[in-house]
């Protein structure tokens, strides 16, 4: 029996086991929405702006390991979603984006709501397709899901002209789809793994640095076993937090521009570095020449060969699926683990403890104005360290990363690569839908929050009891910090003097809003909010306007060239 392209789309989503589609209807996708209406397996979440749809699908994926799906119309539907697609691309999040397109005969005619979706998204997707023949629709959607979640994951876009959604053909969903041009390497090279084991065993000052790849590939259990076997210090990137328990003594904090003193110093001064699912980006190692000025051997494990030796030359590259490679590495190491130089390791740890003793994250705990760090510490306590935390981008993001000790992977959900303000709230919607009943908090700042605050209305519609922790300093805090440090205190356009009343804003959208002004009220307000299991509560914390994020590696500087709080 022949069915329509629109019905094929829905049947494909059902076959993929898709639970939620985040989207917004419009002319070019009306036929698909009509088919969505006729069934109840795939549930639709109606956002208030297509950027929110992409972020919500992204958050859903990050918190669940499933592929996020979003559905938007042609033209502005696509362009609005682009920020969300690029966000997912930079952080390698598996996502399938279905976009409507004007009918095939109108393509290229500058038709109403026409945009070259495949062209406009090409640099920010793993792959994309324009489907011109209804018979190609099912195999293309199969490919899209396969590409999105395998290898180095990423968003894949499928652009479907309206006439293709109306055209009919027989439907068959393929079990698998061979692609001669796409065969990600899974198994690490045994010779390379042997070399890596050798280097690790000989290390005097070893260091392990892991990133988002550990979280995405579900390699946290293997990483923990490897670390317990070796006893080495370990640091996580912003994307990698939760990949190793933040409460473990071998964990020496996040590294990078706002990493801990001990993590950055250990990175700079180690003699053997094991990098796992991380990519030595500019916010991590700062100036690559400065980093390279210290001799050290580097082992780099990654699924994506192009991430290896891109910014930093490595000695032992290992391309493969991280959990499998770590298993192989553990197997290599176990029988010869006694070869480790225990004495060298002991003095290396003594050095690290000295660095740790600098207590680089300390702040004024006696302040009479709310310190943002204090809010995060209390948030950690009140949620028992077991919440899903999404964040926006800026100072609040860094404080959340520094002060919330993530014990499990997929609990810390933020836009690391693209740095997208506005990500936090819509991402939290996806996280909450993926984990009904779980505690979900969105740590945000007033400037970021206002970029997607229309999604408060979506939260009401789907009764999503997210807790919004607004660290409101009436500034674009990170911009202000850079202006203070590097632009002579000229706070150019980083201050907003016409902010909304966030309490009323929450109330206007049917939620609860609470403003908190005193440090002593922080914990009670949080406790009260998290008691309300069925309500979204927006907590508007009026925080210290002058607080800065420390330590800080200024742009273009080396990892050991940090500015510490006491130096200002």
């Amino acid at each position: 029996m022949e069915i329509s392209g629109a019905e094929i789309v829905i049947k494909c989503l059902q076959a993929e086991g898709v639970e939620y589609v985040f989207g917004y209807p419009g002319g070019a996708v009306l036929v698909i929405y009509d088919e969505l209406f006729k069934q109840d397996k795939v549930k639709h979440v109606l956002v208030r702006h297509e950027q929110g749809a992409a972020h919500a699908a992204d958050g859903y994926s990050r918190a669940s390991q499933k592929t996020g799906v979003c559905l938007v119309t042609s033209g502005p539907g696509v362009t609005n979603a682009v920020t969300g697609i690029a966000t997912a691309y930079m952080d390698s999040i598996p996502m399938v984006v279905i976009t409507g397109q004007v009918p095939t005969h109108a393509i290229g005619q500058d038709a109403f709501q026409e945009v070259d979706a495949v062209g406009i998204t090409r640099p920010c997707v793993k792959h994309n397709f324009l489907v011109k023949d209804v018979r190609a629709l099912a195999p293309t959607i199969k490919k899209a899901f396969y590409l999105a979640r395998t290898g180095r994951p990423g968003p894949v876009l499928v652009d479907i002209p309206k006439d293709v959604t109306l055209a009919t053909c027989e439907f068959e969903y393929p079990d698998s789809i061979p692609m001669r041009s796409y065969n990600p390497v899974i198994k690490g090279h045994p010779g390379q793994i042997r070399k890596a084991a050798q280097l690790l065993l000989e290390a005097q000052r070893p260091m392990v640095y892991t990133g988002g790849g550990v979280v995405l590939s579900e390699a946290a259990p293997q990483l923990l076993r490897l670390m317990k076997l070796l006893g080495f210090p370990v640091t996580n990137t912003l994307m990698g937090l939760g990949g190793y328990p933040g409460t473990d003594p071998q964990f020496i904090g996040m590294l990078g521009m706002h990493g801990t003193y001990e993590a950055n110093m250990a990175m700079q001064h180690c003699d053997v570095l094991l990098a796992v699912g991380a990519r030595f980006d500019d916010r991590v190692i700062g100036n690559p020449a400065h980093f390279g000025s210290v001799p050290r051997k580097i082992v780099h494990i990654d699924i994506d060969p192009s991430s290896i030796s891109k910014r930093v030359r490595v000695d032992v590259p290992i391309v493969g699926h991280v959990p499998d490679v770590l298993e192989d590495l553990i197997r290599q190491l176990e029988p010869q683990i006694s070869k480790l130089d225990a004495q060298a390791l002991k003095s290396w740890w003594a050095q690290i403890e000295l660095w740790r003793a600098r207590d680089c994250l300390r702040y004024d705990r006696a302040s009479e104005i709310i310190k943002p760090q204090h809010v995060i510490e209390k948030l950690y306590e009140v949620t028992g360290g077991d919440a899903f935390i999404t964040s926006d981008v800026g100072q609040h993001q860094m404080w959340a990363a520094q002060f919330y000790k993530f014990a499990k992977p997929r609990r810390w959900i933020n836009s690391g690569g693209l740095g997208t303000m506005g990500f936090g709230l819509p991402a939290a919607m996806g996280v909450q839908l993926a984990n009904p009943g779980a505690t979900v908090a969105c740590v945000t700042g007033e400037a970021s929050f206002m970029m997607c605050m229309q999604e408060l209305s979506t939260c009401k519609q789907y009764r999503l009891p997210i807790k919004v922790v607004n660290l409101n300093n009436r500034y674009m805090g990170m911009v202000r910090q850079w202006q203070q440090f590097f632009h002579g205190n000229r706070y150019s356009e980083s201050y907003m003097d016409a902010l909304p009343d966030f309490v009323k804003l929450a109330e206007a959208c049917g939620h609860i809003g609470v403003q908190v002004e005193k440090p002593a009220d922080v914990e009670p307000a949080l406790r009260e909010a998290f008691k309300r299991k069925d309500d979204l509560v927006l907590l508007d914390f009026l925080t210290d306007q002058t607080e800065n994020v420390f330590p800080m590696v200024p742009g273009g500087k080396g990892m050991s060239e940090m500015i510490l709080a006491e130096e200002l």
Partner: protein
Amino acid sequence: MRHIISTLLENESGALSRVAGLFSARGYNIESLTVAPTEDPSLSRMTIVTSGSDDVIEQITKQLNKLVDVVKVVDLSEAPHIERELMLIKVRATGKDREEMKRMAEIFRGRILDVTDATYTIELTGNGEKLDAFIEGLDRAAILETVRTGASGIARGERVLKV
């Protein structure tokens, strides 16, 4: 250093722009780029002439391999290979220059494809340097128009680039 990179890619619309977009987005040089379907119509063969340090060339081949439409990538410069480029050149051929043009074409083993009272159109094949040398050998004022294909390349010996 100059490198000549050969790729096999799916003969699908958009594949060329994915490659071109990759080069512009990542700031790699393209000296020339040629592409046409192979004997297997589902595959295209692309030859890219580029330049960069060893690190850059390594990234270029890795990034090309990462494109989903790309089936195979080979850096031909790593081993003995043959390069050829085709040029069509229209020159003024009047008076004493008419005989001189014909002689030049013969020296460079070119072929005159089209003749008018005042012009010759010459076909010339060779590596880029040979084509450059031909142009250098002519009086600039005599050159009316040139069109070059960019280099195509293939490995010497028994090495083949095939799926």
